[in-house]
């Protein structure tokens, strides 16, 4: 298993850089991954990361549709917050596995 160091902490990641143990994640770590991904984290970003982590901890499957109903941001806003591939980027920054969903 690969390891990476963020904010002075060594964490376990898979070959694509996704956390294998979400418990190792902190807000400081999130800020550093976000920098790697070219995203500057605002309060709204943090709320979204919390939402995603909460869903995953409850064993739910993440979907773009779900994010649109989160009450934090609409789908268009989500694409603007994490430009490019938003779900992949957001989950990487949130320290959770890459979502296995087609929608």
């Amino acid at each position, binding site marked *: 298993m690969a390891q990476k160091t963020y904010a002075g902490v060594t964490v376990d990641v898979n070959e694509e850089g996704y956390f294998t143990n979400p418990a190792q994640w902190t807000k400081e770590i999130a800020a550093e991954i976000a920098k790697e991904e070219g995203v500057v984290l605002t309060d709204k970003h943090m709320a979204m990361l919390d939402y995603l982590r909460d869903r995953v901890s409850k064993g739910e*499957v993440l979907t*773009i*549709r779900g994010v649109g109903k989160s009450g934090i941001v*609409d*789908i268009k806003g989500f*694409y603007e917050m994490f430009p490019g*591939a*938003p779900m*992949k980027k957001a989950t990487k920054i949130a320290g959770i596995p890459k979502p296995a969903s*087609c929608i």
Partner: protein
Amino acid sequence: MSEEKYPLKKVCIICAKGTIEDVYATLVMGNGAVMEGIETKIFFTFFGLDAITKKQMMKLHTGTVGNPAMRMPGGLPFPSILGMLPGVELGVSAMMKGQMEALDIPKVDEFLEMITAGGGEIYACKLAMDMFKLKKEDLWEGVLGVLTVGEFYEKCDGQQTQIIFT
């Protein structure tokens, strides 16, 4: 020696059929591409136009005749002659929609909105519009334009681009 990779930059999807499964194949592939950050353009033509025609888009059906992959719940064969009976197509279509709802798959209009919210573009085919006597105002509001084949191909330019016919 590491192999050079050329990830997809753009996908252009053509949808020419109007059954639930044909339209959803297009919508899932299109939305999936948008989610991956791939530039996405979808061209609806012939019966595929139903998916972006206001009057029809929420009333798509699955054909119950001549589909050998169609089976009864439980796996028994579904004879075509049964599919011809009045109401069967409606019932099967309702069942398909129920299954999709259970998997949190959005309805056609919401799915199209998800695609365009992520920057995906939706186009209609001019020739098919003329054939079916449709006007731009008959189409879903998010349709970006009515294009000739040539105009659509122009939009499919560039390296690492693929055209998909569903």
